[in-house]
């Protein structure tokens, strides 16, 4: 299983601060598409994705137990 940390509006959309899914073998790009469709997180356009505290490109393949974080750049200041 993979823990997916959620922040800001994603946390609000999901109603919790993380979800657990099985993403091993998927690429980051595939995960993004999957989450948009299945996890009712809304559009992930512009959301940055980190795997084990490293930002990753869409091609990166996710391993078992990798921890994922979805970081929405917020605009406030």
């Amino acid at each position: 299983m993979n823990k997916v940390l959620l922040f800001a509006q994603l946390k609000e959309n999901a109603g919790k601060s993380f979800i657990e899914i099985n993403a091993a073998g998927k690429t980051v790009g595939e995960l993004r598409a999957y989450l948009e469709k299945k996890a009712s997180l809304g559009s992930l356009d512009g959301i940055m994705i980190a795997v084990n505290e490293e930002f990753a490109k869409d091609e990166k393949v996710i391993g078992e137990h990798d921890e994922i974080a979805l970081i929405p750049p917020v605009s406030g200041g």
Partner: protein
Amino acid sequence: MTTPAGRYSRQELFKPIGPTGQKEIRNKSAIIVGVGALGTNTSELLTRAGVGKLILIDRDYVEMSNLQRQHLFTEEDARKKWPKAEAAKEKLALINKEVDITAIVAQADAPLLENVIDGADLLIDGTDNFETRFIMNDLAQKYRIPYLFGSCLGSFGMAFSIMPDVTPCLQCLIKKIPLQGQTCDTVGIIAPAVQMVTAHQGAEALKILSGNVAAVNQAYVSFDLWENNYLSLKTDALKESGCRSCGEEPAYPFLDPAHEMKVAVLCGRDTVQIRPADQRDFPLEKMVRQWRSAGYEVGGNPFLVSVRKGGARAVFFRDGRALIHGTSNPDTARKIYHSLVG
């Protein structure tokens, strides 16, 4: 050696800075774009630290709802609707008269910033919108100046030091501005989240200005103070050699006037039209949900949405174009637009 007693002695006693680093700080100049929550904090910090010169840029004036998180400002500033940059300058002068402070009350667009950037050693992010952030990002690359990105919302925030030639730039990291309608005006903000961002921006500023560039944090920091988490994220994988801002053949797209948000006063109608440069899908439904949940009065029809904010009314079309009714001031209109959209 005498007993340390001077004004900056506690900073000089800190070994990585020392008297030499303090002299360097004294000779440096920083531009702070946006003097709201983040900008008042970092400007106070650098003024107390004894930086040589500060340029503060903000188009806005002080309101009562700012006081909850924006340092330096008082009730009197809000009553007088004093421009933020000027109100900040006035307070900072009482704190440290040795610092040369310039206040500019204007929209921080590319031409204005290019006009003042000569001689600056650092660009600090205090803005509330990504339009301005992408301009700062391009300027940082074009003029080879570090840019301290920072932003926050609710109890959540982030900070990253963009170092030309070393780290990825904002464009590498964020391909597309996420429009979610989540702003401080729709989902709120708590002051400690602001301070957490400025603690990072401030430490990075002191490293850079004192000549300790090797100590700069290369990770992208993201935290949520209410959830008690803190992430330190590596960014190397995202550096793009083909990036149009920091890559091998940069074009600095956000310095191009064609890329600017278009703001037009509609004569005799007490209305300003705003047209974002990027004619992308505008997630109007999502925005409407945010506005409703924040308590704004929202109406409309299948083609447009109308939101009431203070004395003004903003009408949004599906392509992101907006009419701001009830003002003929372009800066007021921009402010309302960004407070609703981000």
